[in-house]
Protein backbone atom coordinates (compact mmCIF):
# COMPACT_ATOMS: atom_id res chain seq x y z
CA UNK A 1 0.00 0.00 0.00
CA UNK A 2 2.76 2.44 0.93
CA UNK A 3 5.12 1.52 -1.85
CA UNK A 4 6.29 5.06 -2.38
CA UNK A 5 8.59 6.68 0.16
CA UNK A 6 6.83 9.23 2.34
CA UNK A 7 8.20 12.25 0.55
CA UNK A 8 6.76 11.21 -2.79
CA UNK A 9 3.25 10.39 -1.64
CA UNK A 10 0.47 12.83 -2.44
CA UNK A 11 -0.68 14.84 0.54
CA UNK A 12 -4.04 13.15 0.84
CA UNK A 13 -2.46 9.71 0.98
CA UNK A 14 0.00 10.69 3.69
CA UNK A 15 -2.73 12.14 5.79
CA UNK A 16 -5.34 9.60 4.87
CA UNK A 17 -5.39 8.22 8.39
CA UNK A 18 -6.29 11.58 9.84
CA UNK A 19 -8.75 12.17 7.03
CA UNK A 20 -10.47 8.85 7.64
CA UNK A 21 -10.60 9.57 11.32
CA UNK A 22 -12.33 12.88 10.75
CA UNK A 23 -14.67 11.10 8.37
CA UNK A 24 -15.58 8.55 11.03
CA UNK A 25 -16.27 11.24 13.60
CA UNK A 26 -18.29 13.29 11.11
CA UNK A 27 -20.18 10.17 10.12
CA UNK A 28 -21.15 9.35 13.69
CA UNK A 29 -22.24 12.89 14.39
CA UNK A 30 -24.33 12.99 11.22
CA UNK A 31 -25.90 9.67 12.09
CA UNK A 32 -26.87 10.93 15.53
CA UNK A 33 -28.14 14.15 14.03
CA UNK A 34 -30.31 12.31 11.54
CA UNK A 35 -31.44 9.81 14.14
CA UNK A 36 -32.63 12.48 16.48
CA UNK A 37 -34.25 14.74 13.93
CA UNK A 38 -35.98 11.91 12.12
CA UNK A 39 -37.28 10.40 15.31
CA UNK A 40 -35.34 7.12 15.16
CA UNK A 41 -34.15 8.07 18.62
CA UNK A 42 -36.52 9.92 20.91
CA UNK A 43 -35.67 13.55 20.18
CA UNK A 44 -36.63 14.65 23.67
CA UNK A 45 -34.30 12.18 25.33
CA UNK A 46 -31.53 12.70 22.86
CA UNK A 47 -31.44 16.09 21.19
CA UNK A 48 -29.63 16.50 17.86
CA UNK A 49 -25.88 17.17 18.15
CA UNK A 50 -26.33 20.51 16.43
CA UNK A 51 -28.64 21.64 19.20
CA UNK A 52 -26.16 20.31 21.76
CA UNK A 53 -23.44 22.41 20.24
CA UNK A 54 -25.67 25.48 20.15
CA UNK A 55 -26.55 24.99 23.77
CA UNK A 56 -22.90 24.60 24.64
CA UNK A 57 -21.97 27.82 22.86
CA UNK A 58 -24.88 29.61 24.49
CA UNK A 59 -23.75 28.48 27.91
CA UNK A 60 -20.22 29.61 27.22
CA UNK A 61 -21.31 32.98 25.92
CA UNK A 62 -23.76 33.64 28.72
CA UNK A 63 -21.21 32.48 31.23
CA UNK A 64 -23.92 31.01 33.40
CA UNK A 65 -21.76 28.29 34.82
CA UNK A 66 -18.48 30.15 35.12
CA UNK A 67 -18.23 29.57 38.84
CA UNK A 68 -18.98 25.89 38.52
CA UNK A 69 -16.43 25.43 35.76
CA UNK A 70 -13.88 27.23 37.85
CA UNK A 71 -14.66 25.11 40.91
CA UNK A 72 -14.29 21.87 39.00
CA UNK A 73 -11.13 22.94 37.22
CA UNK A 74 -9.47 24.16 40.38
CA UNK A 75 -10.30 21.03 42.34
CA UNK A 76 -9.08 18.77 39.54
CA UNK A 77 -5.90 20.80 39.02
CA UNK A 78 -4.93 20.66 42.66
CA UNK A 79 -5.66 16.94 42.69
CA UNK A 80 -3.46 16.46 39.61
CA UNK A 81 -0.56 18.40 41.10
CA UNK A 82 -0.70 16.47 44.35
CA UNK A 83 -1.13 13.14 42.59
CA UNK A 84 1.78 13.74 40.23
CA UNK A 85 4.08 14.87 43.01
CA UNK A 86 3.24 12.21 45.55
CA UNK A 87 2.73 9.54 42.94
CA UNK A 88 6.19 10.19 41.58
CA UNK A 89 7.77 10.08 45.03
CA UNK A 90 5.85 6.94 45.86
CA UNK A 91 7.01 5.32 42.62
CA UNK A 92 10.62 6.18 43.39
CA UNK A 93 10.29 4.78 46.91
CA UNK A 94 8.81 1.55 45.58
CA UNK A 95 11.68 1.33 43.12
CA UNK A 96 14.28 1.78 45.80
CA UNK A 97 12.64 -0.66 48.22
CA UNK A 98 11.93 -3.85 46.29
CA UNK A 99 10.72 -5.71 49.37
CA UNK A 100 8.05 -3.09 50.00
CA UNK A 101 7.14 -3.24 46.36
CA UNK A 102 6.67 -6.98 46.46
CA UNK A 103 4.50 -6.77 49.56
CA UNK A 104 2.31 -4.01 48.15
CA UNK A 105 2.03 -5.54 44.70
CA UNK A 106 -1.38 -7.22 45.12
CA UNK A 107 -2.77 -4.03 46.60
CA UNK A 108 -1.50 -1.92 43.74
CA UNK A 109 -3.01 -4.29 41.25
CA UNK A 110 -6.48 -4.33 42.80
CA UNK A 111 -6.54 -0.66 43.69
CA UNK A 112 -8.72 0.23 40.76
CA UNK A 113 -11.12 -2.64 41.25
CA UNK A 114 -13.33 -0.86 43.74
CA UNK A 115 -15.35 2.29 43.11
CA UNK A 116 -13.39 4.91 44.96
CA UNK A 117 -16.61 6.83 45.40
CA UNK A 118 -17.44 4.73 48.40
CA UNK A 119 -14.90 6.74 50.34
CA UNK A 120 -16.58 9.97 49.41
CA UNK A 121 -18.99 10.22 52.35
CA UNK A 122 -16.18 9.52 54.77
CA UNK A 123 -14.06 12.17 53.17
CA UNK A 124 -16.91 14.64 53.56
CA UNK A 125 -17.22 13.86 57.23
CA UNK A 126 -13.47 14.15 57.63
CA UNK A 127 -12.81 17.23 55.56
CA UNK A 128 -16.09 19.06 55.74
CA UNK A 129 -18.76 20.03 53.24
CA UNK A 130 -16.43 21.89 50.92
CA UNK A 131 -14.24 21.21 47.89
CA UNK A 132 -11.54 19.31 49.74
CA UNK A 133 -13.26 15.91 49.71
CA UNK A 134 -13.38 16.21 45.93
CA UNK A 135 -9.73 17.12 45.76
CA UNK A 136 -8.95 14.16 47.99
CA UNK A 137 -11.05 11.90 45.79
CA UNK A 138 -9.24 13.07 42.68
CA UNK A 139 -5.92 12.62 44.40
CA UNK A 140 -6.70 9.12 45.62
CA UNK A 141 -7.94 8.05 42.21
CA UNK A 142 -4.91 9.37 40.37
CA UNK A 143 -1.97 8.84 42.69
CA UNK A 144 -1.62 5.10 42.24
CA UNK A 145 -1.67 5.32 38.43
CA UNK A 146 1.14 7.86 38.63
CA UNK A 147 3.12 5.75 41.09
CA UNK A 148 2.76 2.54 39.10
CA UNK A 149 3.80 4.20 35.86
CA UNK A 150 6.75 5.90 37.50
CA UNK A 151 7.81 2.55 38.91
CA UNK A 152 7.38 0.95 35.52
CA UNK A 153 9.52 3.59 33.88
CA UNK A 154 12.29 3.28 36.42
CA UNK A 155 12.32 -0.48 36.10
CA UNK A 156 12.41 -0.40 32.33
CA UNK A 157 15.57 1.57 32.01
CA UNK A 158 17.65 -0.79 29.87
CA UNK A 159 20.34 -2.45 31.96
CA UNK A 160 22.97 -1.57 29.40
CA UNK A 161 22.42 2.16 30.04
CA UNK A 162 23.10 1.65 33.72
CA UNK A 163 26.24 -0.31 32.92
CA UNK A 164 27.28 2.57 30.71
CA UNK A 165 26.78 4.88 33.65
CA UNK A 166 29.09 2.68 35.73
CA UNK A 167 31.60 2.56 32.91
CA UNK A 168 31.62 6.35 32.87
CA UNK A 169 32.18 6.26 36.61
CA UNK A 170 29.06 8.24 37.45
CA UNK A 171 27.97 8.70 41.02
CA UNK A 172 24.48 7.60 42.09
CA UNK A 173 22.97 11.06 41.92
CA UNK A 174 24.45 11.75 38.51
CA UNK A 175 23.26 8.38 37.29
CA UNK A 176 19.74 9.14 38.51
CA UNK A 177 19.71 12.65 37.10
CA UNK A 178 21.40 12.08 33.77
CA UNK A 179 20.42 8.55 32.84
CA UNK A 180 17.60 7.01 34.87
CA UNK A 181 15.24 9.97 34.78
CA UNK A 182 15.58 10.86 31.09
CA UNK A 183 15.25 7.18 30.20
CA UNK A 184 12.05 6.74 32.19
CA UNK A 185 10.48 9.98 31.04
CA UNK A 186 8.08 8.43 28.51
CA UNK A 187 6.51 6.28 31.21
CA UNK A 188 6.44 9.11 33.71
CA UNK A 189 4.61 11.12 31.09
CA UNK A 190 2.07 8.33 30.68
CA UNK A 191 1.58 8.49 34.42
CA UNK A 192 0.96 12.22 34.25
CA UNK A 193 -1.55 11.72 31.45
CA UNK A 194 -3.44 9.14 33.46
CA UNK A 195 -3.30 11.33 36.57
CA UNK A 196 -4.98 14.15 34.68
CA UNK A 197 -7.66 11.89 33.26
CA UNK A 198 -8.40 10.10 36.51
CA UNK A 199 -8.50 13.30 38.57
CA UNK A 200 -11.11 14.74 36.28
CA UNK A 201 -13.14 11.56 36.31
CA UNK A 202 -13.08 11.42 40.10
CA UNK A 203 -13.87 15.09 40.69
CA UNK A 204 -16.70 15.26 38.20
CA UNK A 205 -18.01 11.89 39.34
CA UNK A 206 -17.94 13.02 42.93
CA UNK A 207 -19.78 16.20 42.07
CA UNK A 208 -22.32 14.12 40.26
CA UNK A 209 -22.96 11.91 43.24
CA UNK A 210 -22.99 14.36 46.07
CA UNK A 211 -22.19 17.99 45.82
CA UNK A 212 -23.71 21.44 45.90
CA UNK A 213 -21.69 22.97 43.12
CA UNK A 214 -19.40 22.23 40.26
CA UNK A 215 -19.71 20.97 36.73
CA UNK A 216 -20.78 17.45 37.60
CA UNK A 217 -23.39 18.76 39.98
CA UNK A 218 -24.85 21.03 37.31
CA UNK A 219 -25.19 18.14 34.92
CA UNK A 220 -27.00 16.08 37.56
CA UNK A 221 -29.18 19.08 38.45
CA UNK A 222 -30.18 19.66 34.86
CA UNK A 223 -30.96 15.98 34.48
CA UNK A 224 -33.12 15.88 37.57
CA UNK A 225 -35.03 18.94 36.40
CA UNK A 226 -35.60 17.49 32.94
CA UNK A 227 -33.66 20.41 31.49
CA UNK A 228 -32.20 18.39 28.64
CA UNK A 229 -30.85 21.23 26.50
CA UNK A 230 -28.77 22.57 29.37
CA UNK A 231 -27.70 19.08 30.36
CA UNK A 232 -26.54 18.21 26.88
CA UNK A 233 -24.90 21.58 26.49
CA UNK A 234 -22.88 20.98 29.61
CA UNK A 235 -21.98 17.47 28.54
CA UNK A 236 -20.84 18.73 25.15
CA UNK A 237 -18.66 21.33 26.83
CA UNK A 238 -17.19 18.62 29.01
CA UNK A 239 -16.46 16.39 26.05
CA UNK A 240 -14.88 19.22 24.08
CA UNK A 241 -12.76 20.20 27.04
CA UNK A 242 -11.57 16.68 27.82
CA UNK A 243 -10.97 16.10 24.13
CA UNK A 244 -8.80 19.19 23.88
CA UNK A 245 -6.75 18.28 26.93
CA UNK A 246 -6.21 14.80 25.56
CA UNK A 247 -5.17 16.20 22.22
CA UNK A 248 -2.65 18.53 23.82
CA UNK A 249 -1.22 15.76 25.95
CA UNK A 250 -1.09 13.49 22.91
CA UNK A 251 0.77 16.09 20.88
CA UNK A 252 3.24 16.65 23.67
CA UNK A 253 3.74 12.91 23.90
CA UNK A 254 4.41 12.60 20.17
CA UNK A 255 7.11 15.22 20.49
CA UNK A 256 8.66 13.37 23.39
CA UNK A 257 8.37 9.96 21.79
CA UNK A 258 9.79 10.98 18.48
CA UNK A 259 13.22 11.32 19.90
CA UNK A 260 13.31 9.63 23.18
CA UNK A 261 12.00 6.14 22.97
CA UNK A 262 13.84 2.99 22.13
CA UNK A 263 11.26 1.00 20.23
CA UNK A 264 10.75 -2.17 22.18
CA UNK A 265 12.14 -4.85 19.99
CA UNK A 266 9.99 -7.70 21.25
Amino acid at each position, binding site marked *: MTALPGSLQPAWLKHRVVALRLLVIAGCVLLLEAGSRLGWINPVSFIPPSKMLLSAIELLVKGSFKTDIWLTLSAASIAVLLAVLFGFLFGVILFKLPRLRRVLDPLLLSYYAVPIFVLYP*MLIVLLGLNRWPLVALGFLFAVVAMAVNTLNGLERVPAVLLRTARMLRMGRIDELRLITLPASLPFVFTGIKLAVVYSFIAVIGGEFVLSGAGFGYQIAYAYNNFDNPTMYGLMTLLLLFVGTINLLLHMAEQRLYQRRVLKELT
Partner: protein
Amino acid sequence: MNSPNALPTAAQRWGDVVLLLLGILGCWALASWFFGPTILPGPFSTFKQVRIEVSDAEFADHLTETGLAFGAALCISLFGGMAIGLLLGARRLAGDVFEPLLLALYSIPKIALYPVVLLIFGLGISAKIAFGAIHGIIPMVIFTMTAIRNLRPVHLRSIRAHRLTAWQAAVHVLIPAALPEIVAGLRIGFSLTLLGTLLGEMFASQRGIGHLLMRAIDRNDAPTIVALALMLFLFATAVSLGLLQWDKKLRRAA
Protein backbone atom coordinates in the same frame (compact mmCIF):
# COMPACT_ATOMS: atom_id res chain seq x y z
CA MET B 1 20.43 -14.75 52.35
CA ASN B 2 19.81 -14.58 48.64
CA SER B 3 21.35 -11.87 46.53
CA PRO B 4 19.02 -8.90 46.15
CA ASN B 5 18.03 -9.92 42.66
CA ALA B 6 17.04 -13.46 43.52
CA LEU B 7 13.42 -14.40 42.93
CA PRO B 8 11.44 -14.70 46.15
CA THR B 9 10.91 -18.18 47.47
CA ALA B 10 7.42 -19.49 48.10
CA ALA B 11 7.91 -19.00 51.83
CA GLN B 12 8.93 -15.40 51.29
CA ARG B 13 5.90 -14.80 49.08
CA TRP B 14 3.53 -16.12 51.73
CA GLY B 15 5.38 -14.04 54.26
CA ASP B 16 4.76 -10.99 52.08
CA VAL B 17 1.04 -11.73 51.92
CA VAL B 18 0.80 -12.11 55.68
CA LEU B 19 2.77 -8.90 56.09
CA LEU B 20 0.48 -7.07 53.72
CA LEU B 21 -2.69 -8.29 55.42
CA LEU B 22 -1.38 -7.41 58.84
CA GLY B 23 -0.29 -4.03 57.55
CA ILE B 24 -3.68 -3.25 56.05
CA LEU B 25 -5.62 -4.42 59.08
CA GLY B 26 -3.26 -2.52 61.34
CA CYS B 27 -3.57 0.74 59.43
CA TRP B 28 -7.30 0.28 59.23
CA ALA B 29 -7.65 -0.27 62.96
CA LEU B 30 -5.44 2.72 63.63
CA ALA B 31 -7.42 4.96 61.31
CA SER B 32 -10.66 3.82 62.85
CA TRP B 33 -9.41 4.58 66.30
CA PHE B 34 -8.14 7.95 65.12
CA PHE B 35 -11.22 9.10 63.24
CA GLY B 36 -13.77 7.43 65.47
CA PRO B 37 -15.94 4.39 64.75
CA THR B 38 -18.90 6.40 63.49
CA ILE B 39 -16.83 7.74 60.62
CA LEU B 40 -14.66 4.74 59.90
CA PRO B 41 -15.65 1.46 61.51
CA GLY B 42 -12.77 -0.78 62.42
CA PRO B 43 -11.98 -4.22 60.99
CA PHE B 44 -13.77 -6.29 63.63
CA SER B 45 -17.02 -4.35 63.59
CA THR B 46 -16.95 -4.42 59.82
CA PHE B 47 -16.61 -8.18 59.71
CA LYS B 48 -19.55 -8.40 62.07
CA GLN B 49 -21.49 -6.02 59.86
CA VAL B 50 -20.72 -8.16 56.83
CA ARG B 51 -22.33 -11.12 58.50
CA ILE B 52 -25.36 -9.00 59.34
CA GLU B 53 -25.65 -7.83 55.76
CA VAL B 54 -25.28 -11.25 54.26
CA SER B 55 -27.87 -12.80 56.52
CA ASP B 56 -30.38 -10.12 55.69
CA ALA B 57 -33.36 -11.60 53.84
CA GLU B 58 -33.16 -9.30 50.87
CA PHE B 59 -29.45 -9.58 50.40
CA ALA B 60 -29.64 -12.63 48.18
CA ASP B 61 -32.03 -10.80 45.85
CA HIS B 62 -29.75 -7.81 45.59
CA LEU B 63 -26.81 -10.07 44.95
CA THR B 64 -28.61 -11.91 42.19
CA GLU B 65 -29.65 -8.67 40.57
CA THR B 66 -26.13 -7.35 40.57
CA GLY B 67 -24.75 -10.68 39.49
CA LEU B 68 -27.02 -10.88 36.48
CA ALA B 69 -26.33 -7.36 35.38
CA PHE B 70 -22.61 -7.74 35.89
CA GLY B 71 -22.51 -11.08 34.10
CA ALA B 72 -24.32 -9.72 31.08
CA ALA B 73 -22.18 -6.58 30.97
CA LEU B 74 -19.04 -8.67 31.26
CA CYS B 75 -20.05 -10.89 28.38
CA ILE B 76 -20.70 -7.87 26.19
CA SER B 77 -17.46 -6.20 27.22
CA LEU B 78 -15.46 -9.36 26.79
CA PHE B 79 -16.77 -10.84 23.59
CA GLY B 80 -17.81 -7.60 21.97
CA GLY B 81 -14.52 -6.02 22.92
CA MET B 82 -12.48 -8.93 21.63
CA ALA B 83 -14.44 -9.11 18.38
CA ILE B 84 -14.03 -5.41 17.65
CA GLY B 85 -10.43 -5.52 18.78
CA LEU B 86 -9.69 -8.44 16.46
CA LEU B 87 -11.19 -6.61 13.50
CA LEU B 88 -9.34 -3.39 14.21
CA GLY B 89 -6.12 -5.21 14.94
CA ALA B 90 -6.17 -7.27 11.79
CA ARG B 91 -6.71 -4.35 9.45
CA ARG B 92 -3.81 -1.95 9.84
CA LEU B 93 -5.61 1.09 8.45
CA ALA B 94 -8.70 0.61 10.59
CA GLY B 95 -6.53 0.27 13.68
CA ASP B 96 -4.58 3.42 12.87
CA VAL B 97 -7.75 5.40 12.32
CA PHE B 98 -9.56 4.26 15.41
CA GLU B 99 -6.79 4.09 17.98
CA PRO B 100 -6.78 7.74 19.10
CA LEU B 101 -10.57 7.78 19.01
CA LEU B 102 -10.69 4.82 21.34
CA LEU B 103 -8.14 6.35 23.66
CA ALA B 104 -10.17 9.55 23.72
CA LEU B 105 -13.32 7.61 24.56
CA TYR B 106 -11.40 5.83 27.30
CA SER B 107 -10.49 9.09 28.99
CA ILE B 108 -13.91 10.69 28.94
CA PRO B 109 -15.45 10.72 32.39
CA LYS B 110 -18.17 8.28 31.38
CA ILE B 111 -20.03 9.35 34.41
CA ALA B 112 -20.99 12.41 32.43
CA LEU B 113 -22.68 10.16 29.89
CA TYR B 114 -24.93 8.52 32.43
CA PRO B 115 -27.89 10.80 31.84
CA VAL B 116 -27.79 9.84 28.18
CA VAL B 117 -27.74 6.15 28.98
CA LEU B 118 -30.60 6.57 31.41
CA LEU B 119 -32.62 8.49 28.88
CA ILE B 120 -32.08 5.85 26.25
CA PHE B 121 -32.44 2.71 28.34
CA GLY B 122 -34.73 3.91 31.08
CA LEU B 123 -34.43 2.86 34.68
CA GLY B 124 -33.90 -0.85 34.80
CA ILE B 125 -31.48 -3.66 34.37
CA SER B 126 -30.68 -2.77 30.77
CA ALA B 127 -29.35 0.59 31.86
CA LYS B 128 -27.07 -1.09 34.36
CA ILE B 129 -25.82 -3.55 31.80
CA ALA B 130 -25.18 -0.63 29.46
CA PHE B 131 -23.20 1.23 32.08
CA GLY B 132 -21.07 -1.79 32.80
CA ALA B 133 -20.54 -2.53 29.16
CA ILE B 134 -19.47 0.97 28.13
CA HIS B 135 -16.94 0.99 30.95
CA GLY B 136 -15.45 -2.36 30.16
CA ILE B 137 -15.63 -2.69 26.41
CA ILE B 138 -13.20 0.05 25.51
CA PRO B 139 -10.16 -1.28 27.34
CA MET B 140 -10.90 -4.75 25.95
CA VAL B 141 -10.95 -3.34 22.43
CA ILE B 142 -7.77 -1.37 23.00
CA PHE B 143 -5.84 -4.24 24.55
CA THR B 144 -6.99 -6.81 22.01
CA MET B 145 -6.25 -4.46 19.14
CA THR B 146 -2.80 -3.65 20.45
CA ALA B 147 -2.08 -7.30 21.06
CA ILE B 148 -3.00 -8.29 17.51
CA ARG B 149 -1.06 -5.40 16.01
CA ASN B 150 2.01 -6.42 17.95
CA LEU B 151 1.90 -9.99 16.79
CA ARG B 152 5.00 -11.12 15.03
CA PRO B 153 4.51 -11.08 11.27
CA VAL B 154 5.28 -14.80 11.15
CA HIS B 155 1.89 -15.50 12.72
CA LEU B 156 0.12 -13.56 10.00
CA ARG B 157 2.10 -15.29 7.32
CA SER B 158 1.19 -18.67 8.73
CA ILE B 159 -2.49 -17.73 8.44
CA ARG B 160 -2.07 -17.08 4.75
CA ALA B 161 0.12 -20.14 4.30
CA HIS B 162 -2.57 -22.39 5.76
CA ARG B 163 -5.30 -20.49 3.94
CA LEU B 164 -7.45 -20.13 7.02
CA THR B 165 -10.80 -18.43 7.00
CA ALA B 166 -11.26 -15.39 9.20
CA TRP B 167 -12.98 -17.38 11.91
CA GLN B 168 -10.36 -20.13 11.89
CA ALA B 169 -7.60 -17.56 11.91
CA ALA B 170 -9.11 -15.87 14.91
CA VAL B 171 -9.69 -19.03 16.93
CA HIS B 172 -6.56 -20.99 16.08
CA VAL B 173 -3.89 -18.35 15.63
CA LEU B 174 -4.76 -14.81 16.64
CA ILE B 175 -6.40 -15.38 19.99
CA PRO B 176 -3.93 -17.94 21.33
CA ALA B 177 -0.97 -15.81 20.26
CA ALA B 178 -2.39 -12.64 21.71
CA LEU B 179 -3.79 -14.30 24.81
CA PRO B 180 -1.36 -12.85 27.40
CA GLU B 181 -2.18 -9.28 26.42
CA ILE B 182 -5.86 -10.08 26.15
CA VAL B 183 -5.80 -11.46 29.67
CA ALA B 184 -4.05 -8.29 30.85
CA GLY B 185 -6.85 -6.32 29.22
CA LEU B 186 -9.35 -8.66 30.83
CA ARG B 187 -8.11 -7.73 34.28
CA ILE B 188 -8.78 -4.08 33.65
CA GLY B 189 -11.96 -4.80 31.74
CA PHE B 190 -13.26 -6.89 34.61
CA SER B 191 -12.63 -4.20 37.21
CA LEU B 192 -14.08 -1.46 35.08
CA THR B 193 -17.17 -3.45 34.15
CA LEU B 194 -17.78 -4.12 37.81
CA LEU B 195 -17.30 -0.44 38.56
CA GLY B 196 -19.68 0.54 35.77
CA THR B 197 -22.37 -1.89 36.85
CA LEU B 198 -22.18 -0.74 40.44
CA LEU B 199 -22.30 2.92 39.46
CA GLY B 200 -25.28 2.17 37.27
CA GLU B 201 -27.02 0.57 40.19
CA MET B 202 -26.19 3.49 42.41
CA PHE B 203 -27.97 5.93 40.14
CA ALA B 204 -30.55 3.99 38.29
CA SER B 205 -31.96 1.21 40.34
CA GLN B 206 -33.94 0.19 43.35
CA ARG B 207 -32.21 -3.12 43.62
CA GLY B 208 -28.71 -4.45 43.63
CA ILE B 209 -25.56 -4.04 45.67
CA GLY B 210 -24.89 -0.65 44.13
CA HIS B 211 -28.30 0.49 45.26
CA LEU B 212 -27.62 -0.73 48.79
CA LEU B 213 -24.41 1.23 48.66
CA MET B 214 -26.17 4.39 47.53
CA ARG B 215 -28.76 4.00 50.22
CA ALA B 216 -26.05 3.67 52.84
CA ILE B 217 -24.25 6.72 51.44
CA ASP B 218 -27.43 8.78 51.58
CA ARG B 219 -28.03 7.75 55.18
CA ASN B 220 -24.38 8.21 56.03
CA ASP B 221 -24.49 4.67 57.38
CA ALA B 222 -20.75 4.13 57.69
CA PRO B 223 -20.83 0.51 58.94
CA THR B 224 -22.88 -0.62 55.94
CA ILE B 225 -20.78 1.37 53.48
CA VAL B 226 -17.57 -0.12 54.73
CA ALA B 227 -19.03 -3.63 54.96
CA LEU B 228 -20.26 -3.54 51.37
CA ALA B 229 -17.02 -1.95 50.18
CA LEU B 230 -15.05 -4.68 51.89
CA MET B 231 -17.06 -7.41 50.19
CA LEU B 232 -16.66 -5.78 46.81
CA PHE B 233 -12.97 -5.26 47.39
CA LEU B 234 -12.40 -8.87 48.37
CA PHE B 235 -14.34 -10.15 45.37
CA ALA B 236 -12.57 -7.88 42.90
CA THR B 237 -9.15 -8.61 44.40
CA ALA B 238 -9.69 -12.35 44.32
CA VAL B 239 -10.63 -12.32 40.65
CA SER B 240 -7.88 -9.86 39.79
CA LEU B 241 -5.25 -12.00 41.44
CA GLY B 242 -6.64 -15.10 39.80
CA LEU B 243 -6.40 -13.47 36.40
CA LEU B 244 -2.90 -12.32 37.26
CA GLN B 245 -1.84 -15.87 38.00
CA TRP B 246 -3.30 -16.94 34.66
CA ASP B 247 -1.44 -14.10 32.99
CA LYS B 248 1.84 -15.19 34.59
CA LYS B 249 1.29 -18.78 33.55
CA LEU B 250 0.65 -17.73 29.99
CA ARG B 251 3.75 -15.57 29.90
CA ARG B 252 5.91 -18.32 31.28
CA ALA B 253 4.60 -20.67 28.64
CA ALA B 254 5.14 -18.03 25.98
